[in-house]
């Protein structure tokens, strides 16, 4: 007999929330580097970022906004710590 769908839903919630939290942590590190770069007022002329700095900063801002969407806050709040996340086979 298969486990109830509530367990499968919880596996998706737990696993997704854990990955989102990891991505948020990574994003926070990227933001610190971005902010440090901008604060330093670096002239990118003659480097790989020449003419691309604004696009990069914009893309990072968009990604940061997406990762911090309130929907993911609700997902993270819905984690059940004692659920081991094994009800879905991947």
């Amino acid at each position, binding site marked *: 007999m298969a*486990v109830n769908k*509530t367990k499968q839903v*919880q596996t998706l919630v737990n696993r997704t929330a854990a990955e989102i939290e990891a991505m948020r942590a990574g994003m926070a590190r990227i933001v610190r580097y971005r902010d440090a770069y901008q604060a330093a007022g670096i002239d990118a002329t003659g480097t790989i970022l020449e003419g691309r700095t604004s696009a990069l900063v914009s893309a990072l801002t968009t990604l940061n906004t997406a990762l911090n969407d309130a929907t993911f806050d609700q997902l993270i709040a819905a984690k059940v710590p*004692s659920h*081991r996340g094994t009800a879905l086979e991947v």
Partner: protein
Amino acid sequence: MASGDSLIQWTAAANEPPASNFATLDLRNSHAVLDFDDTADEAAVFRGVMPQHYAGGGVTVYVHYAMTSATTGKVRWDARFERIGDGQQDIDSDGFASAQSVNVAAVPGTSGHVDIQSIAFTNGAQMDSVAAGESFRLKIERKPSDGTNDTATGDAELLAVELRET
């Protein structure tokens, strides 16, 4: 002994875990508990000697449990006996009788509240014919593989088991 009188009681620390798929010992606010997974069937095993005052009227197993975090949903508990007795069971293998079950329609609305559920066994084959003075094992199992009767997410925590004369 009369009907309803207590025969034996066990706490979580008395568990003799099976070799695989076992409930895990844990502490909850210094209460020793056995954590039963919400996805894989897990079991705990308790050993006893049926008291001499068991009158042969059948027994009822009382399962004392709380949910780690769930406040809604259902949980299913199974119990089964293995008679060891005097020359009745080769202990190099397991010989548990068929399980009897209780389907809990709703777990407590507060996760720290302990619920007590009962599972009745008639005297004889249902309790593997354990008689007064005979040693036995009692296996308690949570059954999340029963997707109809076990829907609560997160661990179920067993605190104690009581055996009474039915």
